[in-house]
């Protein structure tokens, strides 16, 4: 139970960074940290004590494999969510670069002032 709490602390750090930071890049990093936290939580949910990776070797019998393997479904979800996170990061960085070209700063409070 304590391990889940660690994942939520990581999530809280990311949320804190998104809300409180003035630097655009720190806001982007906040969202990346939150994505990492949720992925970690998903994998922790699917972990079976001393479970092994859900890949069948050549000789292994299926019943013994099923008893030992870790839950594969959250892992499939996490691969999808990691690549979604990568797509969102690519979009955010290209927007931040564009903003820097227009406003010459990454500071969100300045941008609000300049935007009027």
């Amino acid at each position, binding site marked *: 139970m304590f391990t889940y709490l660690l994942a939520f602390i990581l999530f809280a750090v990311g949320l804190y960074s998104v809300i409180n930071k003035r630097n655009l890049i720190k806001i982007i990093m906040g969202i990346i940290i939150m994505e990492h936290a949720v992925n970690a939580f998903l994998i922790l949910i699917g972990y079976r004590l001393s479970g092994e*990776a859900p*890949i069948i070797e050549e000789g292994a019998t299926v019943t013994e494999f099923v008893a030992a393997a870790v839950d594969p479904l959250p892992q499939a979800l996490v*691969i999808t969510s*990691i*690549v979604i996170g*990568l797509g969102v990061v*690519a979009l955010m*960085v*290209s927007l931040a*670069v564009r903003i820097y070209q227009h406003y010459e700063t990454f500071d969100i409070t300045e941008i609000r002032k300049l935007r009027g």
Partner: protein
Amino acid sequence: MNGMSRIVKTVSRWVAPFIIAFGIYIALTGHLTPGGGFPGGVIIAGCFILLTLAYGKDRVKKIIGVGSAEIVDSLASLSFLCMGLLGYVFGGSFLSNFIQAGFPGNPFGLLSGGNMPIINLAIGFKVGGSLFVVFAFLALFRAIEED
């Protein structure tokens, strides 16, 4: 900006084929060993990015060209969709594994997963192409500010 020092250029020139081979290996044997389309594609994109960083944008643009990477990206996505539609036509429902239903390969062989290796390869090319395109545009975009 004509790339980094000579040492970096030669090292990256030697390492590049191994990285690409490793990327294709990860993408192709996705259904047997850990890995799959996504990490394989990202590794291939990483190799191209390494070459772009080492040799500078203009050299690499001549060899690969950003337009062709976009075309690879769209074509690979279209082929994934066509695999789905083929499943719709042959296997009865959208995205069904009709090759596996038809003639399943031997369980641990390379061609064992029906249309899984094909989809893996399509995703690998798609992710590789699209990430390289984004990096090229980011690098290109920054270049304008400097000159």
